[in-house]
């Protein structure tokens, strides 16, 4: 038998993501949303619609529809002006109605393109196939709370009916790293738009990569492994590792056995860091989709679409670009500020209040970060207003405050709000720019230290530093820049 050789290969990964929307109520009824009431006692966010009791009728949550359009628009998707709801029928203990309301052939969002920044600084353009709105299922547990073994399974319906946006990409990704980068950029987007908390550990975003490999063998023939889907990954690390493992597993399987595998679903064992076979997908799932007679269609008018578009504002990628190109921040600084919306909004407010963009960045990343860390809040949530930050920035730029003294001013501002100049003044930190006073201090010192003056004139540059230090010490709050200037003029 001829040896199987991989001359080259191409990895194709498409991703399905389920994003829980952070609405107050559920998708089709007014029971409180499980995604925004994480940790609620079991079965306390449940009403007759969630239970699927006879005679109940679902009514769409307007915000969930609008937020889905927002995400679609931000991902460059075409918004379908005419969409409908379909029933996806299957039996499972976490699905009381025995069908899930979803969108089959007329999803709210159609094709789009999403630009994903990669760790090496380049970007990847990922085609979006569709994004549709549906409802989440309940939670099925196989252990009692606390990890106790039980001989049955138990169901909590708090999650049932949570608005779920399913976003499907084309197979444009080619490594675990790219899949994880896509996930992170999507998380940034939904958090920025404020439509999902995007907390992975709470299940707000769940990922399912579909993976196969096109192998060029020793004879130059291209062969394709069967597509496998890895279910329910809910950390970026798992997403990256599971994808990379599955790529290797498919190629290894072909080299060792010549098998291309079967279309199937796999799970991820995060402790052993391996994918494991769950079931074959030989028989296509027969969900018997049909239009839900309980829900009228959704028509998206020009006016409605324009209103949603206007509400989106600047997107994270555009903001990052502006920070680098217009504000002149380094890529690293820009990324730190733009990463969290509250911080970025706060930063923009400091600039709007008149601060220099770079100075504002330095203050925010040094003092803002320190104060936020000390208090365990995000920078945007500090109890100091952007206006005060701008005042401090302006004091420094006007040489009225030493940059090194800014920390003391911020500490004082946290105790109580007052104009920054007043606070700095009360701390004795305002620097004098009175040239008369500076000249007098220099003259007095030169008179007292003729030796230093001689050393300086003899070419011992170090003497300048020690003289300047003495001038600064002789009178409190002199502007060091001016002192330096005046000394140079006087000493020649």
């Amino acid at each position, binding site marked *: 038998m001829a040896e199987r050789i991989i001359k080259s290969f191409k990895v194709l990964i498409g991703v399905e993501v389920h994003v829980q929307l952070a609405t107050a*109520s559920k998708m089709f009824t*007014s029971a409180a949303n499980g995604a925004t009431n994480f940790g609620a006692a079991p079965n*306390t966010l*449940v009403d007759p619609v969630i239970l699927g009791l006879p005679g109940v009728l679902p009514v769409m949550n307007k915000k969930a529809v609008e937020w889905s359009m927002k995400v679609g628009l931000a991902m460059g998707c075409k918004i379908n002006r005419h969409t409908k709801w379909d029933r996806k029928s299957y039996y499972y*203990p976490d699905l009381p109605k025995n069908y899930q309301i979803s969108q089959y052939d007329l999803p709210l969002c159609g094709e789009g393109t999403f630009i994903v920044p990669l760790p090496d600084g380049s970007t990847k353009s990922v085609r979006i196939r569709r994004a549709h709105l549906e409802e989440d299922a309940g939670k*099925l547990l196989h252990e009692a709370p606390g990890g106790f073994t039980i001989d049955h399974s138990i*169901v909590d319906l708090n999650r049932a009916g949570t608005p779920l946006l399913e976003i499907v990409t084309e197979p444009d990704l080619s490594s675990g790293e790219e899949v994880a980068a896509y996930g992170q950029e999507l998380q940034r987007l939904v958090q920025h738009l404020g439509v999902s908390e995007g907390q992975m550990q709470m299940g707000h975003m769940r990922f*399912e990569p579909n993976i196969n490999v096109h192998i060029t063998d020793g004879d130059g023939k291209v062969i394709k492994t069967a597509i496998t889907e890895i279910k329910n990954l809910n950390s970026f690390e798992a997403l990256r590792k599971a994808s990379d493992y599955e790529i290797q597993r498919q190629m290894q399987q072909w080299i060792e056995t010549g098998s291309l595998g079967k279309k199937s679903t796999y799970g991820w064992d995060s402790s052993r860091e391996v994918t494991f076979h769950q079931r074959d997908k030989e028989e296509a799932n027969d969900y018997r989709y049909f*239009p839900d007679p309980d829900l*009228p269609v959704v028509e998206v008018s020009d006016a409605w679409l324009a209103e949603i578009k206007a509400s989106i504002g600047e997107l994270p990628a555009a903001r990052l670009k502006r920070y680098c190109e217009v504000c002149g921040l380094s890529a690293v600084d820009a990324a730190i500020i733009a990463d969290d919306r509250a911080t970025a909004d706060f930063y923009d407010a400091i600039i709007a209040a008149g601060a220099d963009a770079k100075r504002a960045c330095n203050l925010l990343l040094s003092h803002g970060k320190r104060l936020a860390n000390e208090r365990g809040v995000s920078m945007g949530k500090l109890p100091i207003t952007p206006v005060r930050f701008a005042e401090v920035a302006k004091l420094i730029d006007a040489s009225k405050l030493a940059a090194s003294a800014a920390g003391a001013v911020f500490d004082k501002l946290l105790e109580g709000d007052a104009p920054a100049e007043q606070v700095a003044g009360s701390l004795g930190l305002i620097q004098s720019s009175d040239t008369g006073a500076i000249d007098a201090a220099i003259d007095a010192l030169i008179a007292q230290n003729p030796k230093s003056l001689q050393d300086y004139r003899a070419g011992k540059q170090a003497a300048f530093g020690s003289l300047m230090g003495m001038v600064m010490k002789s009178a409190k709050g002199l502007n060091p820049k001016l002192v330096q200037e005046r000394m140079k003029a006087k000493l020649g």
Partner: protein
Amino acid sequence: MAEKTITIDDVRHVAKLARLHLNADELARFTLQLGGILHYVEKLSELDVTGVEPMAHALPISNVLREDVAEESLPVEKVLANAPARDGDFFSVPKVIGGDEDSAG
């Protein structure tokens, strides 16, 4: 007119999806009955629907939306009132083996 015929295997498949256990007699009877229904509905294909937009809903209404306001849920005792079995405040169901943790998505 192209006539759709339903086979006994179709009926077996649909019954399985609907979690119905049918015996041989029932399978034969329902195959005949369902075939009759499909034949009757097939009459619709005689209509010329050229240029008619497909409709997704019987009523000429759209955009029935509600504001996103959370309201009181049912007390847990009422939620579980019709449960065949319960375990504390959870529904208790036969052990699900070999499945995903849940069917989400």
